[in-house]
């Protein structure tokens, strides 16, 4: 049971992200089906109309099942955690608001799935029923959101939540259907694309309206943006929405002049794939935001601008492993002791999720150790980025072996991540594997080896096919996971400052993943841009790791 509670905070954010992605696609594909495929199908050649209908139906079914499963698991997780912590029977929990709303949500999804099952194109009544069930899903999730628990401005925040989620469905949720629809004959693809751009524009408007509500109800000031986890996550979301708007604007232009050649939609498809990847990252941030208190509720202990500039002012990297003889350590320890005394004197009530507790007190050696790890990782990533840039010039053949640098990183992880255990510590390898965290680290090292060797083999032409996509997908997944991790509940300044350093890393990882993906998939004019962009992102990541500090 303790292990279950240990995983609760993390599992709920990850499940929430999955649920959010699946639900956005479900609602978006219903909108696509009813507002785009059905009316336009009548204007298309019969073959295209049938294919468009099948695309929408298939996406509704797939996203519906994914949404049903993730919503059920998320509800089950909350139910299980509550039952475990209250030590009560399941009957006593059935009336809880979130249980009732999860039930309503599941019911509405089942209705949607039932309505999508018949293969024939939906008639007027079925289309209305599909929209009605989608609205019911939206209502259920809105009434289970942050907004419902607020004491002030509840109606405004409920409206903002509904608008925001509907906007995401209009804009991002229909992208899987759109990308499939671009394989229709060029005139039909153009027709679908032009209609979709109207839906997307509607979605952008709804999202902006919802965002305005969130600003007034949850954030409220510029200081809250950089001073709290909620504010900085919302800012990351905004940056990615800006990227999406740029991509959307490019799509808008392309959608209105799709060439008749078979490869005419290739460039458009790459942009849409990038939009989908960034869309997933945005939804991961949205899921993460549900686990933190709104910025407005944390007026104390915010990180100040002066503290941010002090922390992010570059200093020479820590390239020697710490030991107690290091002269800088006693001074750092004195500073940490003073901070701890100030925190203790404040005596603010702490709050945690089940399974979470106070972090063990930091000492200067811990921090020096961590900074050393970050800085050497930064050097290696910087080397990878520079080597990849050289490789992109095509003039330095040896640079294509850059994946081998990752082998060095794997060895570094294997040696440094668990200093108490083999090979650095006294605990033997087999004994250390009883600790799940050690197992994770050792597995990570092995996976990095596999990842580096596969990418190297691709570079040498030894492996072909889908293995090429391991690298960009890993970058995207790394960025998304970094965005979706859980946060300090109160304004723990250290955690917030670390958060501020990790957010740009995550954003660069997402952009790098999209760029490498585009380089691999073409068309040539976009691949050329991607080839330079992702190494530049890696260099940025390497630099950020090099200036990383924890005190």
């Amino acid at each position: 049971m303790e292990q279950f509670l240990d995983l609760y905070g993390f599992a709920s954010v990850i499940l929430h992200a999955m649920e959010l992605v699946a639900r956005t696609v479900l609602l978006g594909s219903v909108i696509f089906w009813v507002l785009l495929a059905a009316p336009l199908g009548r204007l298309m050649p019969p073959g295209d109309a049938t294919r468009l209908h099948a695309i929408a139906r298939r996406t509704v079914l797939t996203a519906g099942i994914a949404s049903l499963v993730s919503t059920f698991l998320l509800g089950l997780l909350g139910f299980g955690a509550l039952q475990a912590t209250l030590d009560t029977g399941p009957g006593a929990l059935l009336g809880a608001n979130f249980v009732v709303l999860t039930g309503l949500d599941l019911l509405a999804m089942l209705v949607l799935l039932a309505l999508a099952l018949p293969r024939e194109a939906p008639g007027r009544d079925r289309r209305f029923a599909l929209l009605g069930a989608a609205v019911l899903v939206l209502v259920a999730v809105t009434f289970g959101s942050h907004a419902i628990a607020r004491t002030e401005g509840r109606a405004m925040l409920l409206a903002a939540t509904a608008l925001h989620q509907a906007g995401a469905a209009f804009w991002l949720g229909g992208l899987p259907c759109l990308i499939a629809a671009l394989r229709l004959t060029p005139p039909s693809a153009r027709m679908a694309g032009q209609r979709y751009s109207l839906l997307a524009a509607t979605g952008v408007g709804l999202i902006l309206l919802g965002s305005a509500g969130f600003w007034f109800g949850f954030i409220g000031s510029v200081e809250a943006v950089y001073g709290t986890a909620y504010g900085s996550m919302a800012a990351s979301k905004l940056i990615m929405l800006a990227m999406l708007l740029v991509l959307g604007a490019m799509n808008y232009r392309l959608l209105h002049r799709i060439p008749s050649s078979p490869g005419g939609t290739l460039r458009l498809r790459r942009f849409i794939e990038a939009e989908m990847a960034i869309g997933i990252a945005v939804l991961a941030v949205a899921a993460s935001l549900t686990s933190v208190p709104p910025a407005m509720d944390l007026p104390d202990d915010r990180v100040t601008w002066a503290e941010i500039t002090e922390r992010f002012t570059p200093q020479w990297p820590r390239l020697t492993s710490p030991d107690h003889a290091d002269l800088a350590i006693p001074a750092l320890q004195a500073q940490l002791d003073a901070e701890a005394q100030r925190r203790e004197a404040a005596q603010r009530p702490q709050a945690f999720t089940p399974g979470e507790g106070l972090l063990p007190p930091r000492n200067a050696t811990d921090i020096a150790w961590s900074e050393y790890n970050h800085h050497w990782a930064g050097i290696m990533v910087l080397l990878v980025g520079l080597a990849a840039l050289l490789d992109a010039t095509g003039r330095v053949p040896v640079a294509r072996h850059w994946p081998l640098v990752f082998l060095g990183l794997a060895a570094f992880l294997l040696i440094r991540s668990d200093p108490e255990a083999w090979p650095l510590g006294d605990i033997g390898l087999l004994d250390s594997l009883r600790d799940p965290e050690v197992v994770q680290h050792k597995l990570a090292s092995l996976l990095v080896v596999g990842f580096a060797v596969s990418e190297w083999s691709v570079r040498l032409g030894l492996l072909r096919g889908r293995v090429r996509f391991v690298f960009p997908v890993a970058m995207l997944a790394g960025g998304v996971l970094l965005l979706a991790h859980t946060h300090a509940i109160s304004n723990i300044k250290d955690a917030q400052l670390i958060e501020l350093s990790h957010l740009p890393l995550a954003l660069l990882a997402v952009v790098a993943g999209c760029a490498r993906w585009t380089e691999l998939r073409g068309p040539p004019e976009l691949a050329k841009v991607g080839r330079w962009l992702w190494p530049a992102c890696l260099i940025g990541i390497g630099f950020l790791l090099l200036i990383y500090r924890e005190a």
Partner: protein
Amino acid sequence: MPRRLSLARRALLAALVLALSGAVAGPASAHAIVVTSEPTAGASLAAAPPQVTIRFNSRLDHARSRLLLIGADNAQTTLPIAEGGDPVALTAPLPATLAPGEWRLRWQVLAIDGHITRGDIPFTVKAP
């Protein structure tokens, strides 16, 4: 495990080395937080108040929340939470006499948006 391990792991993830290594570890969190409490955290009181009131930033499901009084010897007493009333506050009577010493109020609340949060409010009753 020491904090440096999870940070090292984050760095490696950020370095795009391994997407699924579990870099997401870190302080988990939830939604409802304490706004004010009576007694306040760390208070040193001549006598315990007749009732405890903890106000949160979220509307609560009182029936599925819990409040424990824990003594220095770790003995736990479940306090009966008042139903109805303020939707964002937990209110419960304290025992008539609390012996001098260190006490903790251990609360767990279910916000109506489904988030579970828990925490402690320590206070001291001074000897007369």
